[in-house]
């Protein structure tokens, strides 16, 4: 019952979204104001919505993928005692996420922004009896808050520069804005995006966030929430386009994140962690694309990524479900036989993300590479390709180690293994189909396939200001260059897929290098010790400072001074008290001395 309400509401909103899609397609953006939230003088903040081509696109992903994940969750969370709570949180998340994309101003976006952070906190810490999960949840929330502070300050600058937070007003005044100010705004907004979309240096929460139930990882930490940063930058493309410096920063952060986290992903053994690092890496690619000015490509990749990463997570969940909670791939192997449906959809997902020709990831990645080559040049392109190759490597490793070879788990687990129920597999299959055909939404024009640049045209529709929401990226590359670039990366991907089959797929046991980790491998497996670094750079000093300030600065320092005044008063009192020694002679002498002193005033 709970599941039906939960999933049903999502289905309803999906259908409504489709209606919106039609309406937007037919008559342009829809605007409506629910009520007046607050106003300070000229600054008026409404609880208002704006459904334009960009938001409706995001809404489609959120409600569509969200619906599938809800359905899947009915099966996955069936035995959990917090079943009802799970759906409550999940629906709250969808609410917040829709708020984020549907708002017609930055404040609404911020509401959703923090709201999804909160839901993420609640869902990561869903199994709250485990303290580590609680810690992971807190870490996620707090790192997000660091980003949120940036976003908030960005909003303050927007208010100062444009006198409004509404998209409509801000983007209408772009022409007259001070470029330096715009750069500041963009950088601060990007700090927010870094937090939410787990970019370096604020990425470490995302792998830890895998503590939550797997559908959560799929929905929040792969398909939707983490792409909010991409949405934010795309929404503000007008601002970013005015600031080459900011764009540069975005591109560098994206690229570094893409490569760095892909390397970490190579040596992870937790099935969800691998996917998590993969997500961070893919998000890095999206930001690279944004930095190159290819907003549409980024959105395109968001879309396809939503399909195949949700698919991957859900099928990983299916594996975990089947294995009775086991997540370490070293204890798996040969699952192909036991879970055929899961295996096939996982295979599709892996190929899609690795850039197997004509699958969705192939198209979206190719667009990014083409844009990188066009705007950044060969070196950028080469670096991006490295990340693509690494992606293929860790994904194939994951696939082969999990599903091929011999089963390496315990006997008990072997008995437990079963294929998931259809309530879980059907959503998987739908997602698999989407992962295959999703690329057709925006095929490159030079390939002359159906759906050529369809998405780009859609997003370039006129927004509320009568200007294109996301201008088409101009790629000045000849068809032959594009063809050759594409062929090169595709060839590399295929090579990896085949090569790794021989390393991991064909062998019964894991290679030694995956069991015993030494040297650089060990550093990678330990995620370059970034967590430890952060711990000793930020967490420990803060805690030590906290204790120090409390013990020494507060109790002994500030309060010591206050108490010292009191002590001083009583010390003085003790001295004065001795004057009153009870002897009349002294009293009389005191009087006379006092009188004598008084007589001195005659001479003043």
């Amino acid at each position, binding site marked *: 019952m709970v599941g039906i309400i939960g999933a049903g509401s999502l289905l309803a909103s999906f259908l409504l979204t489709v209606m919106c899609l039609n309406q937007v397609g037919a008559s342009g953006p829809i605007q409506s104001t629910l009520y007046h939230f607050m106003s300070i003088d000229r600054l008026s903040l409404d609880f208002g919505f704006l459904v334009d081509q960009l938001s409706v696109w995001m809404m489609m992903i959120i409600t569509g993928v969200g619906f599938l994940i809800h359905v899947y969750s009915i099966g996955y969370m069936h035995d959990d005692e917090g079943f009802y709570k799970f759906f409550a949180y999940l629906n709250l998340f969808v609410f917040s996420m829709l708020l984020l994309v549907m708002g017609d101003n930055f404040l609404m976006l911020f509401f959703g922004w923090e709201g999804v952070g909160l839901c993420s906190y609640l869902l990561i810490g869903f199994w709250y009896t485990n303290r580590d999960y609680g810690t992971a949840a807190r870490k996620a929330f707090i790192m997000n808050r660091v980003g949120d502070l940036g976003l908030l300050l960005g909003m303050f600058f927007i208010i100062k520069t444009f006198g409004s937070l509404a998209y409509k007003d801000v983007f209408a005044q772009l022409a007259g804005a001070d470029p330096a100010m715009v750069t500041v705004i963009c950088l601060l907004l990007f700090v927010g995006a870094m937090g939410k979309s787990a970019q370096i240096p604020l990425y470490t929460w995302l792998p830890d966030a895998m503590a939550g139930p797997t559908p959560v990882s799929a929905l929040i930490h792969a398909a939707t929430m983490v792409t909010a940063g991409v949405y934010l930058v795309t929404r503000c493309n007008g601002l970013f386009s005015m600031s080459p410096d900011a764009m540069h920063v975005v591109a560098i952060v994206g690229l570094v994140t893409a490569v760095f986290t892909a390397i970490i992903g190579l040596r992870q053994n937790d099935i969800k962690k691998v996917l998590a690092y993969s997500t961070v890496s893919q998000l890095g690619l999206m930001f690279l694309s944004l930095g190159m000015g290819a907003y549409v490509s980024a959105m395109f990749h968001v879309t396809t990524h939503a399909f195949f990463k949700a698919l991957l997570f859900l099928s990983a969940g299916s594996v975990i479900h089947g294995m009775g909670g086991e997540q370490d791939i070293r204890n798996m192997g040969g699952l192909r036989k036991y879970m055929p449906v899961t295996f096939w959809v996982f295979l599709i997902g892996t190929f899609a993300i690795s850039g197997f020709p004509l699958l969705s990831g192939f198209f979206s990645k190719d667009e990014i590479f083409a844009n990188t080559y066009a705007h950044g040049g060969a070196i950028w392109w080469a670096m991006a390709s490295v990340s693509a190759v690494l992606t293929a490597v860790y994904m194939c490793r994951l696939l082969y180690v999990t599903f091929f070879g011999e089963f390496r788990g315990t006997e008990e687990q072997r008995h437990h293994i079963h294929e998931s129920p259809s309530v879980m597999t059907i959503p998987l299959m739908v997602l698999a189909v989407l992962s295959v055909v999703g690329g057709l939404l925006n095929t490159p024009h030079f390939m002359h396939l159906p759906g050529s640049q369809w998405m780009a045209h859609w997003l370039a529709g006129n927004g509320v200001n009568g200007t294109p929401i996301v201008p088409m990226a101009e790629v000045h590359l000849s068809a032959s260059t594009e063809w050759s670039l594409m062929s090169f990366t595709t060839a590399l991907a295929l090579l990896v897929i085949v090569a790794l089959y021989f390393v991991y797929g064909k062998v019964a046991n894991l290679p030694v290098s995956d069991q015993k980790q030494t040297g650089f491998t060990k550093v990678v497996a330990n995620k370059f010790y970034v967590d430890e670094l952060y711990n000793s750079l930020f967490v420990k000093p803060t805690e030590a400072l906290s204790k120090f300030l409390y013990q020494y600065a507060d109790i002994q320092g500030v309060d010591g001074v206050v108490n010292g005044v009191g002590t001083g008063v009583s010390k003085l009192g003790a001295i004065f008290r001795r*004057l009153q020694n009870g002897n009349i002679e002294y009293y009389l002498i005191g*009087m006379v001395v006092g*009188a004598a002193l008084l*007589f001195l*005033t005659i001479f003043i």
Partner: protein
Amino acid sequence: MFAGLFGKRDLLLPVTLLGLAAALGVSAMSLSTGDAGWGTQYTSMFSFDKYAQSFTAITLTSVLLLAGMSSWGFRTLNSSLGDHYALILFSLCGAVCMFSFTNLVMLFIGIEILSIPLYVLAGSRRDDLASNEAALKYFLMGAFATGILLFGMTLVYGSTGTFNTAAIGAAVERGVASPGMLKMGILLLVVGLSFKVSAVPFHFWAPDVYQGSPNTVTAFMATAVKTAGFAAFYRLFSTSFLGVNEFWSVGIAAIAGLTMTLSNFTAIFQTEFKRMMAYSSISHAGYLMMAILVAGQPGSAGAILLYMLTYSIATICAFSAYIVVAEPNGDGSFAAFNGLSKKQPLVALVMALSMLSLAGIPPLAGFFGKYFLFSTVMQQYPWLVVIAVINSAVSVYYYLKVIIAMYFTKEENTYEVLIPSSIRWVMVAGVVIITLLTVLPGNIFGLI
């Protein structure tokens, strides 16, 4: 006053109360009608003007309450009961002289009429060594101070040629032939009067005498006597010596600052309630000295009047609460009050109100006393007001000690506390007056 002669012990108190009430009635009436009273016939010696009338009225109020308290406070006295009332009333006569004098001779006589009975009263517990000691200390130092005062008067007389205060004032305005002698005289007067009001460094007698004297007498000394001292001090300086006030204000300011600081800081250490009250009384003298500084300024006399009234009533209430707790149990320390709020909420409430009022915490009457005083002084001596303000903050500490003992201390002593009906009436009357002063302090202030 002479009822004691007839051995009619039971009649003493009613007669005293009636007499006091009648006197209060007369002074209140003349205050309200603006009648100059009978003072006109004696202008060279007395002037029963508004100033004198209002101070008489408030002193009578205090003494009325004290008399009510004394019916229990003097319960152990037998043969000498009549003498006690007589001495108190004599002393009161002296006080009235000090309110209304227009001549230094009358001032001197008033002070002596006030003081001599007090020496006796202080030593009235003949077998108590503390009481003896108090009497001797008070007497010796008092006599010494009188000598100084008289020398001062003589020098003033010598330089101005008159004892009449107004005439002195006029002469001082004009300028005198021998200003050095005048200045010396004024300073000696300051010393003598400061002794009477127990201002530092002429205060040494006060804590010891207050502690050693019988409780009722202490209460009398702390209230009526102090009122008389300040009224006289102010009256003399505002009529006679305004012409050279830059000269003496330095000394008075120093005395004021010293008085409040020294007494408040010393009071912190006291463990005996009565001794604490002695230092408290000295500290109030310190605040009141500031009013002398601004003598002649509009509102300064009213400020003293209101301050004295609020201070007196609160002190009497505190003493009435103190004697019911301390006397039967022979324990005058703060610990005697432990847990009083459970045993006798009324006594505790009265004591708490008095303490808060003495501390000058709004909205209690004592605050308005301080307020009017400080606001009068503020314009000329802001730094002195700041010292006074800091001191009143310090004073909160020791006043609260009593409240802490009564309300917050968990461990209780075994003392039994009973309230005699006369004390109950005093307390109720005191609380009513405090409340009235809280609501309408301006009416008292405006009397002068």
